[in-house]
């Protein structure tokens, strides 16, 4: 309460100050202007079109026209900065005496681009840290609905997993390895200079000018406690010239699963497998005679997988794709009179669920300058409609953005970037695992009891969906029944789950030139995100639907249900930064100091009810039973002081240092303050005298090194250090005794909990040779995370209430590696250019200190062990030893130990229980790739361009549960015939595939238990992107007033190479390598390929 009050007070105080600033601004003074005109040409006197002319220190500027000429009104004594791609930038004083003639020299030196870094911009050459800048043209090639997904393969050291095939889904991004155990490993996102908390999918990629990835401490430690996992800085577009530029972009495409599932067994095959399994068990496990076993198999196989029902004549019947209730003969072969009565499409869950669906995107932006370049504006709007690839997927996004900066006085500039985004998406219920394991003898549609026809909805005439009438497994389930409509467009009968999101993202600043070189900037940003989830569980369709009073119209037992979830998230950042930048002869200094306050608030509300007794009613008001409600609010704030100093001499020697002090509400008052610093230097060795001999081919070589610290406070709870009591238990059930209020221990106090600290070292060199035809960066990094935030499990006898463990700082992790980035232009002629971009990262992830010893735990499928010297995700398990040729049972290697616990020998056993203990497990590989990177080749011939990017990751491991499931005969689950072709069939068979057995997952049979058999090395390569484009020649477009017209076709993830794909598993998997259920292990559909065609037009 007091917190809230005082923050309000603070805001009021802040706005008073703000008001004063605005009053100042109203006294605008007149300033003398001169009109200049000029002409820009290359060494040969050819006019240079599109050259940018900017008045130094302002955003005032223009571009040259088709004849190389320009006109501009500038303040007296201005200096013009003239730049054109491929040419050296020059600075000339503005003069209106004569038409200015400016000649640009073709570039032989490296492009000294200006890059966006922490709290400002810098020249790349003077930057001592490690970062990658990605320009908009690279981002524009990839048609991702989430801009962060485009980062894959763009930068060395940045590992991006686009493992979820849902439109707009967030990728998993790890910069320079995994530096945490249980705190977040995501980078900090900064948009237009301020930390960004909105959804990444809310940003239209067409609005983005550049993305910088800050990797080492020198680059990121100014973000202190939140920068341990690196920082991704996104900058949105602004005008580049005073000419009004209109860009229009449209593209259309579709997507599909990137990796095809294995071919599932067909119904007839399935029945024979089951028969065989029963026969095997009868003979080899129970010792029956051949004849008895056949009879036993025939009597049992069908009932195990299909629920018997009674047909209209009163006979027991198994409704299946064949005309016979029991389509196998006494030898387990299809009977000659067995006929399929279902069409193949009737059991094709995949075909019914995954379809190529339209994705369309349109964007337009208008930018320019007015008021003699003092006002710089950019307006944009975009619309995206991505229907995904699965039934029920939908992602729509509407964005609007206005970026304005206005130099209201010579010493004051005000600006505001304001964006509004509305998104609408559905949660589809189509899941990878479900599609893989739903066997072909079940149909998505409801068959009648006589197996003569489908059951039809009496209202719509469509086939009724089946919720498990004849299924032994997957009762209640039908992925097609979910999200067939939306809440604004519902046919009144099926479930839906819609999520609405509205984001207002505002960044405003005032900047003052106090004196030469000294600037003060005060910025305020607010990200306000309101989200609402509307869920409806059908009142008409579902497991209880009986059709007694008509299919498709009767309300089912219990009726429908509805829930509404509302969240409101507001994050506010206010910072005040003073910078001093000046050059004295060959000395250049840049000093910066300031303060920042960050406040985050998250409000949650939820309501649920059931018992909706009518169709077409979806609101909570219509619910009558089982109502429940909940709400809570979370708060988090951070106060910071920061400073930076940079010095360079003669553009040869650069040093920098930074400091930040953060206080975070996530920690107790005694341990909340953390200090972070960095120091770095670089040496442009190629400028030294002794290097003169190389200047003919080596344009630039600089060495650099940095060291520093960053922090991570992103532990699971906002109040992790506090001891708390709760009135509900871990299952959110009240702990009251009847109506007497009760409490339970919720969390154990850990007042000493503190930051996770990263110590980062970076060293490397940048080079540029052969007139920029070959350049690149090689860097070594070492990143040591100390005092890892970790929720440590207590011995069971120490658990209390909901507290099964406690938050602590435990252990150290070291990530180290080498990053290589190379850009080469092997061929460059007037007509043809070939450009190669290559990046490669060698990564080693190692736990270096684990004070409380080895620690085993289970993932969803995989089992892991943390030990010193191994990686964060080290998969362990028993070793598979093939198949016993006599019995067809799976065997495992069992270790025999001596008294001292040393392994003396290994013997094969078929008893899984013996090997399913910690001491029997072997290390089976780390899930973290050892090497990853990308190779991009771009070709340009006349007006055509073509490029492709190959992305690869090598050395990781995968526990492929989904593949395992395609290998196991399990009640109500699918199997793939190809995988079990070589199975054991009779004594003496030598094979790796055990015999078929009834429910092979049970301990008794142990044929497909968790073991090394399902752990695979996950080397893969993807054709990440292919783009083919055509630029209409300017002589054709200019007639219509268009400066640029481009047509293109682009494809993402068109090909996937590697063993995982041959198993039907997408190699892009959750970082833990646990392919349990979908590629995020929680049921998501795997990543998709997409094909898009589009047009870009600029006026």
């Amino acid at each position, binding site marked *: 309460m007091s*917190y809230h009050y*005082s923050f309000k007070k*603070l805001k009021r*105080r802040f706005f008073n*100050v703000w008001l*004063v*600033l605005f009053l*100042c601004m109203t006294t605008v003074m007149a300033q003398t202007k001169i009109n200049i005109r000029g002409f820009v040409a290359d060494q040969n006197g050819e006019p240079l079109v599109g050259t940018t002319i900017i008045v130094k220190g302002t955003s005032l500027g223009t571009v040259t026209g088709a004849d190389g000429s320009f006109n501009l009104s500038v303040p007296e004594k201005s200096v013009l900065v003239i730049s054109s791609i491929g040419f050296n930038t020059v600075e000339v004083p503005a003069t209106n005496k004569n038409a200015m003639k400016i000649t640009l020299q073709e570039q032989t030196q490296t492009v000294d681009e200006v890059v966006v870094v922490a709290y400002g911009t810098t020249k790349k050459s003077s930057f001592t840290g490690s970062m990658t800048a990605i320009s908009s043209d690279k981002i524009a090639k990839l048609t991702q609905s989430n801009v962060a997904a485009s980062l894959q393969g763009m930068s060395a050291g940045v590992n991006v997993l686009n493992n979820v095939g849902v439109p707009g889904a967030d990728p998993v991004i790890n910069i320079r390895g995994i530096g945490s155990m249980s705190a977040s490993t995501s980078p900090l996102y900064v948009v237009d200079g301020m930390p960004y908390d909105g959804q990444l999918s809310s940003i239209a990629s067409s609005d983005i000018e550049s993305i910088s990835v800050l990797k080492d401490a020198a680059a990121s430690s100014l973000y202190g406690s939140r920068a341990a996992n690196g920082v991704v800085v996104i900058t949105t577009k602004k005008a580049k010239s005073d000419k009004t530029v209109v860009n229009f972009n449209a593209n259309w495409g579709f997507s599909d699963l990137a990796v095809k599932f294995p071919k599932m067994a067909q119904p007839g095959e399935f029945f024979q497998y089951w028969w065989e399994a029963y026969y095997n068990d009868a003979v080899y496990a129970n010792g029956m005679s051949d004849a008895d076993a056949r009879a036993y198999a025939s009597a049992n196989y069908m009932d195990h997988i299909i629920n018997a029902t009674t047909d209209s004549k009163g006979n027991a019947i198994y409704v299946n794709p064949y005309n016979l209730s029991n389509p196998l003969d006494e030898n387990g072969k299809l009977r000659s009179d067995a006929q399929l009565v279902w069409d193949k499409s009737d059991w094709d869950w995949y075909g019914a669920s995954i379809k190529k669906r339209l994705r369309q995107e349109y964007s337009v932006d208008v930018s320019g300058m007015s008021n003699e370049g003092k006002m710089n504006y950019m307006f944009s709007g975009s619309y995206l409609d991505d229907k995904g690839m699965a039934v029920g997927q939908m992602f729509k996004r509407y964005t609007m953005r206005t970026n304005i900066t206005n130099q209201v006085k010579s*010493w004051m500039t005000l600006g505001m970037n304001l964006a509004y985004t509305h998104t609408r998406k559905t949660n589809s219920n189509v899941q990878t695992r479900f599609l893989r394991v739903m066997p072909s003898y079940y149909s998505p549609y409801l068959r009648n009891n006589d197996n003569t026809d489908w059951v039809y909805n009496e209202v719509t005439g469509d086939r009724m969906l089946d919720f498990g009438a004849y299924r032994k497994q997957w009762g209640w389930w039908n992925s097609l029944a979910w999200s067939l409509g939306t809440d604004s467009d519902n046919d009144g009968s099926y479930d839906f789950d819609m999520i609405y999101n509205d984001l207002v993202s505002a960044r405003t600043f005032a900047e*003052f030139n*106090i004196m030469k070189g000294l600037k*003060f900037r005060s910025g305020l940003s607010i990200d306000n995100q309101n989200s609402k989830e509307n869920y409806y569980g059908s009142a008409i369709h579902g497991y209880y639907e009986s059709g007694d009073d008509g299919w498709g119209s009767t309300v089912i037992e219990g009726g429908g249900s509805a829930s509404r979830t509302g969240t409101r998230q507001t994050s506010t950042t206010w910072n005040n930064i*003073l910078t001093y930048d000046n050059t004295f002869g060959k000395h250049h200094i840049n000093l910066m100091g*300031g*303060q920042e*306050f960050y406040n985050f608030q998250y409000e949650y509300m939820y309501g649920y009810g059931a018992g909706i007794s009518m169709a077409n009613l979806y609101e909570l008001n219509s619910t009558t039973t089982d109502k429940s409600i909940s709400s809570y609010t*979370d*708060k*988090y*704030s951070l*106060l910071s002081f920061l400073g930076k100093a940079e010095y360079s001499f003669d553009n040869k020697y650069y040093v920098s240092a930074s400091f930040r002090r953060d206080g975070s*509400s996530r920690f107790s*008052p005694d341990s909340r303050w953390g200090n972070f610093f960095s120091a770095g230097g670089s040496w442009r060795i190629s400028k030294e005298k002794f290097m003169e001999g190389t200047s003919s081919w080596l344009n630039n070589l600089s060495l650099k090194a940095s060291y520093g610290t960053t922090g991570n406070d992103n532990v699971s709870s906002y*109040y992790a250090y*506090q*001891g*708390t*009591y*709760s*009135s509900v*238990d*871990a*299952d959110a059930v*009240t*702990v*009251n*005794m*009847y*109506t*007497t*209020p*009760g*409490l*339970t*221990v*919720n969390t154990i106090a850990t007042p000493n909990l503190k930051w996770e600290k990263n110590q980062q070292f970076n060293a490397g060199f940048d080079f540029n040779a052969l007139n920029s035809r070959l350049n690149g960066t090689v860097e070594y990094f070492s990143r040591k995370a100390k005092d890892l935030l970790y929720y440590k*499990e*207590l*011995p*069971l*006898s*120490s*658990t*209390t*209430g909901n507290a099964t463990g406690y938050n602590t700082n435990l252990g150290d992790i070291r990530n180290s590696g080498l990053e290589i980035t190379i850009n080469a232009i092997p061929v460059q002629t007037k007509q043809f250019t070939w450009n190669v971009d290559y990046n490669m990262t060698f990564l080693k992830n190692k736990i270096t200190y684990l004070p409380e010893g080895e*620690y*085993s735990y289970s993932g969803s499928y995989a089992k892991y062990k943390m030990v010193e010297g191994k990686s964060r995700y080290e998969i362990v398990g028993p070793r598979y030893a093939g198949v016993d040729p006599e019995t067809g049972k799976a065997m495992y290697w069992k270790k025999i130990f001596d008294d001292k616990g040393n392994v003396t020998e290994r013997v094969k056993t078929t008893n899984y*229980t013996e090997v*399913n203990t*910690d001491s029997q497990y072997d290390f089976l590989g780390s899930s973290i790739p050892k090497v990853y990177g990308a190779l991009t080749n771009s070709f340009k011939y006349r007006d055509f361009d073509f490029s492709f990017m190959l992305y690869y990751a090598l050395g990781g491991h995968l526990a492929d549960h989904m593949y395992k499931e395609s290998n196991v005969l399990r009640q109500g689950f699918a199997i793939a015939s190809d995988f079990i072709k070589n199975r054991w069939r009779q004594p003496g068979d030598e094979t790796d595939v055990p015999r078929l057995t009834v429910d092979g997952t049970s301990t008794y049979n142990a044929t497909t238990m968790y073991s090394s058999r399902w752990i695979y090395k996950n080397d893969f390569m993807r054709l990440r992107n292919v783009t083919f484009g055509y630029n209409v020649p300017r002589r054709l477009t200019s007639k219509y007033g268009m400066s640029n017209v481009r047509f293109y076709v682009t494809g993402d993830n068109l090909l996937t190479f590697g063993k995982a794909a041959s198993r039907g598993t997408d190699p892009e998997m959750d970082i833990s390598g646990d392919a349990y259920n979908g590629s995020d292990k929680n049921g998501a559909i795997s990543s998709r390929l997409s094909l898009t065609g589009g047009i870009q037009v600029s006026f």
Partner: protein
Amino acid sequence: MIRKYITIITTICLILGLGSCDDKLTTSSSVDISDTQILSSAAGLNMLLEGTYNRFYFKTNSDDFRQVFKGITGNYMLDMLRGTDVICDDNLGGEQYEAYQFISTYTLASGSSSIMWKNLYNIINQCNIIVDNIDKATGNDEMKNKVKGQALAIRGYCYFQLIQFYQQTYAIAKDKAGVCLRLSSTDGTDIPRSSVSACYDQIINDMTTAQTLLADFNRGDVKYYLDKDVVSGMLARVYLVMNDWSKAAAAAQEALQNYGTLMTRDEWRNGFCHADYSEVMWGFYQTTESNMGDNGMFSFWYNWPESTGEPFYNFNNYFVNDLYVKLFETTDDRYQFWHRTDAYPTKWACSKFYDPGNGSAKSRGDYVLMRGSEMLLILAESEAQLGNSAAALTALNKLQSARNVKNLTTTTSKSDLLEAIYIERRKELMGEGGGGMLDYLRLQKTLVRAGDHFDAGKNAEIFPLASNDYRFIFQIPQRELQLNASISESDQNPFSGQ
């Protein structure tokens, strides 16, 4: 001029920023309550006690579907299913069937031995917090005594449960490793196993201290609170296991002072779901807010003939053995429980745990956890062991008469009398601790399964099971071995064998 303003404003801005934000850095949950607030007052600790009772009666630590591990009554089910008198069908699978079949649910590697361990320690640790903080908390002595006394009683009882399930019985295992005695919330995580006798010393210490503290506590008619009479009853159970006959007799006598009026025939016939009957010392009821869901005894026993038209979804899971039914005279009040159902025409359904309420209320009957009849049986057994056959017969016959038994026991032979008392115990306390696994351990009887048990084939693999066989006993959970540095593999209970 204006630049001067700017400079001033800049300074103000920075000072504002520097000076005023530090106190904004303390935020806390909008729903959870800070520990200092709870621990400093007896009222707060009393709320923790109520939450502990909730766990004690209704909860497991992970509440999806935990039949025989749900609350303290789960232990009674587990005990009952691992005897001879109750039989359990496989129609639901699940933990109750695994318990019945001695399937390896209690083993280290694959089993759920961890569930009971975690549940009971979870309760114990909340009690420890109460005991540690109550003396220095604000509040009057009456409140403090009441809260502390109940916390100690709960803790003692939880240890009593643990020691019986995780080690062989006191009589033969005094010096063996018992359970970890956690007695304070500040003890740290690594606690070794104490000896069985040390565990019993602690149990008695907790319970006798509780008795003193609860001397003036009047719980009214809220029978889920532990008062001094319930604690006497608990002590009677403990002394019985310890074969301390005179103390057991004395404790039972004390409990009987207020609960000696036994249930009438009509009360018996009205379903065993009424905690308000005069002989009921300890019990709790279920409401729509606080209940066992479908995981309680009522759901598993419920197996009325379909012909009665009962609309309730029934599990048809528990039945009684035909040999057990034959123990009763047909005129015995308790004989009226047995009947045949359409679905299971060859098994004896039982309507002892039957709630005559309607609809889902049928699974929401009251739970009876201790009553005067048991105290009479403890009294009789103790007196018989002490050689006082007359006193033993008085107690036994009182119960038999109340149940309308025609041929009252008259034997004065010690062994015959003890056997008669044991059979009466099975008859009276089926599902309440009579004739279950814990009696087999306590009395060192070999468990033999005969009669119409389900899955006779599987039974033959296991039974007869000697009372000192470790297959009766849970193993220490793997997670405890991994994380508690004071216990190692060598401290583990064997999986089987004597």
